[in-house]
């Protein structure tokens, strides 16, 4: 039988170390909503989302009450809208109408974000894909809860450099379109390489076409718990360090697994995956950077950071994988800048640069995430940064992503305030040497040699 010390340990994690379930994300297929009439398409989408997700928020709250574990977000991901909307949407403006429908449906069911305003163009773009991408700046400026993502490359297909070029411009236009709010629209826009079909985390969540009609995916969290556990092995060797991370990751993931199974049972929707990510928040004691400091670095970004992050990521996976029957999504440690107080401190101390962050993305689960850059950085430079990050993902057969925020009207040294879970961020300097000639070549970068495995 469970003893009092085990009960106390669990409750201490929840009450003092910010253990929570970061998100229950309900993936919904919209493939059966497709219609060639735009109004009918919008009706179908609204009706399906509000029907399938009707009980999502209530179910999440019931589970919170039953186990006294906070479930911070209840969210929805849908089939990439470029696929769903192509038959009806003939212009970017038509796609914006679909974005508004998603926003309305999200508000009706009470979720804070809905992901899937997306296009998958890792090899090339159809006219519909291009129209959706071109509609992103407007779609993100007229909606509140819609999140957008574009997959521009994969290990199997290479990188669509036309899409990379276009996304540099789109990110810039989105920043312009939302400049009244510190270019907040860009915080809801991710560019991916090797995007997973079952990611529960925003802004990059979408419901892949390989998935069934509806599915529950859960993202766990808990950097604070790992940090506290590591305080107990301060100064000990790497074996002790790794063992501690693994055991802690196991415990965190088991809670996620329980919540996922409960949500699945109560809603009558199959369980998909657990995403084993250490997802920080701006709250003190809920930071991945603080774990890196506890491992022995003065700040995240100091020499040794990439190695420390590599072992952290690996041990989280090793501990988590045994705790859940299905693991997927992004699974690893997130290193967003604005959403992690330790990262913000590291940037402000001059310890963490964009180039070091890029190196870190080679060994962690995602990429350049929530990085604020000066608003006058040209689109071609943004495309260059995207291309670098996509190449890391393509060659290393992993997911990489870019969520950059060119803050219009602000420069290096200034700070942007996004509020809530998105936090605040110091504007970081960018290498200003040009890459126009590279980006404007057009076409695609071929898939790497090691992708040919058949």
């Amino acid at each position, binding site marked *: *039988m*469970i003893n*009092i010390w*085990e*009960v106390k340990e669990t409750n201490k994690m929840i009450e003092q170390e910010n253990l929570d379930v970061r998100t229950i994300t309900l993936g919904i297929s919209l493939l059966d909503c497709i219609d060639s009439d735009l109004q009918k398409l919008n009706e179908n989408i609204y009706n399906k989302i509000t029907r399938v997700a009707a009980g999502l928020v209530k179910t999440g709250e019931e589970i919170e*009450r*039953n186990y*006294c574990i906070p479930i911070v977000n209840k969210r929805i991901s849908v089939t990439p809208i470029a696929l769903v909307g192509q038959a009806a949407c003939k212009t970017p403006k038509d796609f914006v109408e679909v974005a508004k429908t998603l926003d309305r449906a999200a508000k009706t069911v009470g979720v804070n974000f809905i992901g899937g305003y997306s296009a998958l163009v890792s090899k090339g773009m159809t006219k519909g894909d291009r129209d959706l991408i071109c509609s992103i700046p407007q779609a993100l400026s007229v909606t509140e809860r819609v999140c957008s993502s574009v997959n521009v490359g994969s290990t199997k297909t290479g990188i669509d450099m036309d899409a990379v070029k276009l996304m540099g411009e789109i990110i810039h236009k989105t920043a312009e379109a939302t400049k009244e709010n510190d270019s907040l629209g860009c915080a809801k826009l991710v560019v991916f390489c090797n995007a997973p079909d079952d990611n529960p985390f925003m802004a990059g969540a979408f419901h892949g076409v390989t998935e069934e009609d509806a599915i529950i995916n859960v993202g766990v969290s808990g950097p604070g718990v790992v940090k506290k556990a590591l305080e107990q092995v301060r100064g000990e060797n790497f074996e002790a360090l790794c063992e501690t991370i693994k055991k802690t990751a196991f415990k965190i993931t088991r809670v996620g697994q329980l919540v996922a199974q409960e949500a699945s049972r109560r809603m009558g929707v199959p369980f998909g995956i657990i995403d084993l990510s250490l997802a920080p928040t701006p709250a003190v004691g809920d930071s991945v950077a603080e774990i890196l400091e506890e491992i022995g670095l003065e700040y995240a970004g100091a020499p040794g950071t990439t190695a420390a992050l590599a072992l952290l990521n690996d041990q989280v996976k090793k501990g988590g994988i045994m705790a859940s029957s299905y693991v997927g999504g992004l699974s690893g440690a997130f290193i967003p800048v604005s959403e992690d107080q330790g990262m913000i401190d590291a940037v402000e101390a001059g310890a963490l640069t964009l180039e070091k962050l890029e190196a870190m993305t080679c060994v962690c689960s995602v990429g350049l995430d929530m990085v604020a850059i000066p608003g006058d950085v040209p689109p071609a430079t943004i495309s260059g940064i995207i291309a670098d990050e996509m190449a890391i993902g393509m060659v290393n057969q992993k997911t990489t992503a870019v969520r950059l925020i060119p803050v219009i009207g602000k420069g290096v040294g200034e700070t942007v305030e996004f509020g809530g879970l998105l936090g605040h961020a110091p504007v970081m300097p960018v290498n200003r040497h040009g890459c126009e000639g590279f980006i404007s070549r057009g076409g695609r970068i071929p898939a790497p040699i090691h992708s040919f495995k058949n």
Partner: protein
Amino acid sequence: MEKKADRTIITVVGKDTVGIIARVCTYLAENGINVLDISQTIVQGFFNMMMVVDMKGASKPFGQCAKELEQAGEEIGVSIKCQREEIFNKMHRI
């Protein structure tokens, strides 16, 4: 067929005072909740109690019991928490 046990962990944490256990147990008895196990300890002057209870015969739904116990705790200056047992089993047992 007899209903399956519905095990819940009640934890009580706070400053030690007369009648904490009595107050909690009275509530449980009045609401058809059976106590299976109690363990208790004092850590740094703080009263820590864990009860394993079976709620299969409870006269009220889980959420309401949890809320009423929480209120009862506030009245006597302790924090009372109800959690279904699975969260602990999942975390601490393979």
